[in-house]
């Protein structure tokens, strides 16, 4: 039996020699591999991983990069995975390597480029040193593993008072045919003060070989800035994703994070928010529609440290066949975080007896003048409603889809970009196996 952890640790030395950056980064990598060596992969004894078992995924001896494989995809092959009906900056990676010919980056109104090259340029040094590996937690095995092996990812720096003229799409494609691969993409996104950005992120596998992506994204949002972030997860049955995202907000900032999970073998979203100032607003929304034996786990955490802040969290899930959903929503309210308004809701529909959802709100409140609410529901489709709709001539499958779409619709109301809303609606219809024009 292979020991993936040992293999990774022993391969690190060679990896680090080949990918030397500068002393600061190299030191971080050394430190990180030591933490990973100590912590390892999380197992089911860890309360945070009680319902998501990584063990079956760790039996594969992943390659760190599909080194020998030729990359031969063009934009036309992958166009459909982009939101291609709007103008956008694109940062594209294929098998963990930056693809300049499919990307559209800039250094004009902002820096929208790749992290590996930004790390080699003096001009970006202060931003990178201020934020890289500072926002993500350091004592975590998976995050350390990413820090130790990261090769590339997106670097976005939006200076003060800049409203990005168009959204940014960050795309990670995997084409590995020969080997199972483990990817460690790393994104750093920094918004200065009074700036605005919209970002879409997607990981997409184009071939049948199993892969595991252990992604880390660090985000800093400055004073009075606004970030709108979308994750579209609709990967193949062989692809697994562990997404670790950390958002740090300064005062008067607004961040909305919307995760759409429709595919993949196993998807774990660790979404962490820290509000570092007054009057912050955080929105965490998600729609999950899965079937087969797919597994989607949303672990969210919002830390409120200052007064007059808000957080709104709404996750809806539809689980068919043998699929398994997990929702764990933590809200921490520090004693100083008075006049807080925190709302959390998780609603689920199970379409079969074998589908499963484990949902757990977790609120720790140490302030007395706050408004915090939470709730979760698990239900089935209303048979009476289905009969009613069928009686009006709507076939059962379409009736189901219409009910489920209506169930998820209030989450979609927060999607600001119409092109994304349209894409999500189409994906939901596809997932439910119907051809209904929902936006009649």
């Amino acid at each position, binding site marked *: 039996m292979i020991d993936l952890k040992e293999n990774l640790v022993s391969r690190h030395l060679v990896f680090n020699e080949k990918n030397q950056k500068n002393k600061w980064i190299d030191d971080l990598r050394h430190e990180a591999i030591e933490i990973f060596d100590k912590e390892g992969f999380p197992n089911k004894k860890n309360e945070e991983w009680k319902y998501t078992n990584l063990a079956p995924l760790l039996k594969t001896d992943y390659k760190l990069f599909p080194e020998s494989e030729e990359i031969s995809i063009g934009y036309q092959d992958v166009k459909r995975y982009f939101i291609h009906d709007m103008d956008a900056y694109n940062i594209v990676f294929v098998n963990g390597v930056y693809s300049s010919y499919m990307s559209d980056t800039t250094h004009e109104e902002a820096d929208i480029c790749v992290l590996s090259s930004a790390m080699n340029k003096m001009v970006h040094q202060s931003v990178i040193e201020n934020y890289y590996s500072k926002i993500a937690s350091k004592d975590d095995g998976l995050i350390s593993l990413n820090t130790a092996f990261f090769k590339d990812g997106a670097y976005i720096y939006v200076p003060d008072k800049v409203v990005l003229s168009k959204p940014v799409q960050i795309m990670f494609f995997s084409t590995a045919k020969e080997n199972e691969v483990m990817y460690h993409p790393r994104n750093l996104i920094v918004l200065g003060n009074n700036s605005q950005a919209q970002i879409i992120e997607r990981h997409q596998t184009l071939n049948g070989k199993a892969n595991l992506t252990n992604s880390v994204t660090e985000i800093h949002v400055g004073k009075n800035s606004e970030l709108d972030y979308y994750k579209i997860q609709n990967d193949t049955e062989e692809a697994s994703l562990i997404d670790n995202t950390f958002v740090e907000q300064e005062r008067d900032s607004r961040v909305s994070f919307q995760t759409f999970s429709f595919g993949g073998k196993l998807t774990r979203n660790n979404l962490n928010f820290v509000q570092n100032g007054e009057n912050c607003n955080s929105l965490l929304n998600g729609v999950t529609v899965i079937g087969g034996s797919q597994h989607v786990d949303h672990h969210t955490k919002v830390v409120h440290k200052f007064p007059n802040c808000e957080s709104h969290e709404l996750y809806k899930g539809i689980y068919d066949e043998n699929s398994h959903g997990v929702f764990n929503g933590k809200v921490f309210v520090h004693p100083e975080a008075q006049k807080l308004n925190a709302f959390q809701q998780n609603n689920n529909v199970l379409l079969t007896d074998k589908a499963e959802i484990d949902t757990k709100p977790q609120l720790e409140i140490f302030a007395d003048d706050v408004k915090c609410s939470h709730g979760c529901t698990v239900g089935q489709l209303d048979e009476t409603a289905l009969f009613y709709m069928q009686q009006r001539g709507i076939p059962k499958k379409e009736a189901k889809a*219409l009910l489920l779409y209506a169930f998820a619709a209030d989450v979609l109301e927060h999607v600001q970009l119409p092109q994304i809303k349209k894409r999500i609606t189409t994906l939901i219809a596809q997932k439910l196996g119907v051809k209904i024009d929902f936006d*009649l």
Partner: protein
Amino acid sequence: MLTISNLHAQIEDGAEILKGINLEIKPGEVHAIMGPNGSGKSTLSSVIAGKEDYEVTQGEIDFENENLLEMGPDERAHKGIFLSFQYPVEIPGVTVTNFIKTAINETRKAQGLEEMGASEMLRLIRENAEKLGIRKDFLSRSLNEGFSGGEKKRNEIFQMMMLNPKLAILDETDSGLDIDALRIVADGVNAFKNENNAVLVITHYQRLLDYIVPDFVHVLSNGKIIKSGGKELAHELEARGYDWVIEEAAI
């Protein structure tokens, strides 16, 4: 048009509700089924519409020479059967307009017709809403959600007029309606009525039958039709109650 012969139906736990119903409805006719609570009136309408909670153990239902019992509820709807529900279901997130458009176009698709164009759809919606005194903002609300009893019933008749079925079954459509609403609903049904379609009114009280005048009145008791007659039978039932018919049938 509709021929029901020796229909027996039971609920899942095995209790028999319908115990041999015979009924024939021809185009252009209005039939009323009356009867005390628990006699099986709503079960009959659910069985005709194809609700899966009931099992038909004996008998047949033919609609325009086709065996209805082999069809799902949606297929029956496509053939032209409409049931106005006693308790219309609330469907949050689906607007009245969105719902009716989907229903019409799914029906047209099943009938091999083109989808209805947006402008024709709008014209029809406006026309029928006006006839029933339905306000515009009502059409963009979630279907039946937070509607009053009267609004729900009016919405059922609105859908009936939009879908223009061959056979409309009105299950206790008068319950929850005040006299003005009752008149509007009845006017709608009377406007819909012609020599090619038929109406089956299911009601506990004779009140609605003053406005929608039946050609035939049937009394349902304990799962059987025990007496049939003309519209005057409804008045007699109103005046004398059901007991005398039940006693008469027992002899």
